[in-house]
């Protein structure tokens, strides 16, 4: 049995979570959480950590980059590969907030988070 200690990031409370892992690497128990979302986070974080990527893309004809995000979290280990793909992209106006710029970025869509008019 192994134990891992995590700081919960689901909300600003920042609970200290303890996750007990079996020898097979499965989650046996989560303690320290004050809500069910915390327990779910602890399991995911230990088994397959994911992060929402927020960054910017180049926009044609302007120095001002367009802010973007993945519409769902992507595997943490792919963050830098995702950055490479996003940084090779260039968009052209008009783009509306919520427009999809990439259909599949490690399982997520890349969407604009502001208008480019």
């Amino acid at each position, binding site marked *: 049995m192994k134990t891992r200690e995590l700081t919960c990031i689901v909300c600003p409370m920042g609970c200290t979570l303890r996750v007990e892992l079996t020898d097979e690497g499965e989650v046996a128990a989560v303690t320290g959480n004050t809500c069910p979302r915390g327990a779910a986070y602890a399991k995911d974080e230990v088994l397959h950590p994911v992060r929402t990527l927020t960054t910017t893309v180049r926009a044609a004809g302007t120095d001002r980059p367009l802010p973007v*995000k993945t519409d769902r979290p992507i595997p943490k280990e792919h963050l830098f590969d995702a950055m490479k793909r996003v940084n090779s992209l260039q968009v052209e106006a008009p783009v509306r*907030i919520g427009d999809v710029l990439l259909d599949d970025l490690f399982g997520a869509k890349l969407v604009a988070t502001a208008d480019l008019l």
Partner: protein
Amino acid sequence: MKTEIAIIGAGPAGLAAAVAAYDAGVKDLLLLERDAAPGGILQQCIHNGFGLHRYGEELTGPEYAARDVAEVRKRNIPILTETMVLSVAPDRTVTAMNRQNGIFTVEAKAIVLAMGCRERPRGALNIPGDRPSGIYTAGTAQRFVNIQGVLPGKEIVILGSGDIGLIMARRMTLEGAHVHAVCELMPYSGGLNRNIVQCLRDFDIPLLLSHTVSRVHGNGRLTGVSVAEVDENRRVKPETERYIPCDTLLLSCGLLPENELSKGAGVPLDPVTGGASVNERRETAIPGVFACGNVLHVHDLVDFVSEEAHLAGESAAKWVLSGAAGHAERSIPVRAGGKVRYTVPQRIDSPETPVRLFFRVGSVADNAVLTVKSGQTVLAAKKKRRMTPGEMESFELSPAVLCAAFDAGEPLTVSVN
């Protein structure tokens, strides 16, 4: 120019105050904004985590701002952008200037101060050493990267573990820079837990607590910094000093409410928050002048800024609709005691509606007991496992508690021990 309510600043506070004032019945409003577009600092905060409380979902800064801007546009509330407010007079005359109108005045029945805050600048930190280029506040670097599309450096050290510094540690790392360390003078971080996890630990960036930059080196451009541990009195321990080569130093050492206009108007400030001293409706000591958001006290979350601005905007509208009359007959001061550094509001003018008190502790309090006392009488108490200076706390006072306080006629003291 004349208007019922002039709102200074079209960031999240100003925008929410405008919508609330409009919905409370005052349709003649004017927002004054010095930037080219509304939205304030949210425009450059491209990361997510905004709106969890208000909308139940995680938005990025530009998305959060876009929702507020859309609400303002829907109501046809005018926003004068690229307009700099020069002064606010106690009679609620605003002097401003822009390219179209030159210098002009706006006579308002009520004013909402929503100017936000600024970062503590390099000049206020007194770091010894050379004076090279390559030293920026974290927010300036954020503007470079997210708005202007340029990376200010490649080898980075960050002084201060405020949230913007943590966010920029991640942002610069993702864009290919190398962040050597984040130094924090205090034995704890001033940033939110989630940012320490997601911005530093995710990328193995060391957080050096009780450390500071003891010297900057470089002729022309920064070439490195000396970092050292500090003792319990925050004095550098010279034997711990070590050199880190870097081309950029980012400063994330606290935010200061920007109250030059308030001071000019004669609004009394709270020396601890650096913002106006207000009542439960967010009215300053000058009748008809309200304040909300980071110009009043620095918030952790924009959701709470919007909530406070809603209250201030609604209060300003009520003040205008009630004929801009009068001041409270009786008022109970609220004082901070024990580990509590400050409270907002600083006074309560009416016991009739519940009042949520916001406060911050000055040092970490474990197994904390919060008490609200009127003189020596404890009116309310609450236990909390942990309170930290980095997170704003709040506590609701019921009308019953407030009536007891008004009957006693003594100041309320909020303390944590």
